[in-house]
C-alpha cells in the first residue's frame, strides 16, 4: 500500500516560491496563469493492510513531522 501526502501552505499564507514561479511564467508570456502555489508531495510505501488504519497512522505522521500545521495543510491519499 502506498500513501501520497500533499502538503501546501494554507490559504491566506503568502507563498514566496509560488510568486516567483508565477513571475517567471508571466515573463514567458503564459498570461493565463492567475496564481501559483508550490507545495510538496511525499510518497510513503507502507506494509499496512488496513486502509483506515494506514490513513490514521499517516495523519499522525503529518501532525508530528511531515507538515508544520502552523502554516501548512496536508491531504492524504491511500493508493492500493
Amino acid at each position, binding site marked *: 500500500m502506498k500513501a501520497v501526502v500533499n502538503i501546501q501552505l494554507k490559504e491566506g499564507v503568502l507563498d*514566496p516560491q509560488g510568486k516567483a514561479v508565477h513571475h517567471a511564467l508571466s515573463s514567458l508570456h503564459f498570461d493565463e496563469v492567475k496564481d501559483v502555489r508550490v507545495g510538496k508531495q511525499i510518497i510513503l510505501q507502507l506494509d499496512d493492510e488496513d486502509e483506515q488504519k494506514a490513513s490514521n497512522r499517516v495523519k499522525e505522521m503529518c501532525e508530528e513531522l511531515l507538515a*508544520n500545521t502552523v502554516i501548512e495543510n496536508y491531504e492524504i491519499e491511500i493508493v492500493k
Partner: protein
Amino acid sequence: MKIAVAVFPGTNCEIDTKYAFEKLGAEVELVFHKEEKLPNGTDLVVLPGGFSYGDYLRSAAIAKFSPIMNSVIDYAKSGGKVLGICNGFQMLLETRLLPGAMKRNANVHFISKFHHLRVINNENDFLKKLSIGDVLNIPIAHGEGNYFLDKIALQELYDNNQILLKYCDENGIDKNPNGSVDSIACICNKEKNIFGLMPHPERAVDTLLGSEDGIKMLQGLLDSK
C-alpha cells in the same frame, strides 16, 4: 555562568557562538545532539545557527526529535533560559516553544549581509543592556527567515511585549529584508526566558569583524544569572 551550546549534524555556528560567549567571560560547553542530558548547572542553553539535518523537509523540522532536545524543552518549560539563533530560532518554532513559523524569504534568495535592527522592547534579560529605539548592525544569513504568524497571535506578541527586534535601515526606519510579518527579527515567549532571532549577534563581537553590536545583546544574558 555556564552555557551549553547544542550541536546537531549540520550545525555550523557552534564555534563562533562558543568564541563569543567565552570572550565575554562565560564557561561554554558544546553538547552533542545524541546526549540526553544537559550538563549539570547549565545557566543558559544556546541553539546555534546552521543547517541541522540538511534542513531537509523544513528548516529544523528533524532536529526537534534529537535526544538532547527533550532536555532542552524540559529546561525551557521549567523556566531555564534558552537562546535560539537562526536555525536555533527555527528549532524553537518547530518545537512550539515560540509561536509562529518560518517561510522561504520573500525574494526566494538566501540573504547573507549586515542588516540593521531596532530595539522594540528591552524589559527582558536578552536586551536589557540596550534602550528602546537603539539601532544595531548585525549580520543575517538565512534562506528561510520569513517569519509568519496569524493576526491574533501577532496581537498577543504586541500585548505582552514579546517583540524584541525589528529589521530596519540605519536610521531605524522599518526595512524588511525577508518578508517577515511587521519586519520582526526577534521574539521571546510570554514568560521571557526563551529568545529566538534570525540575525547572528555572535558574529558581531569584534570591530575586526565589522561590528561589535552583538556584545551588548549577549552580555545581557550573562548578567542575568
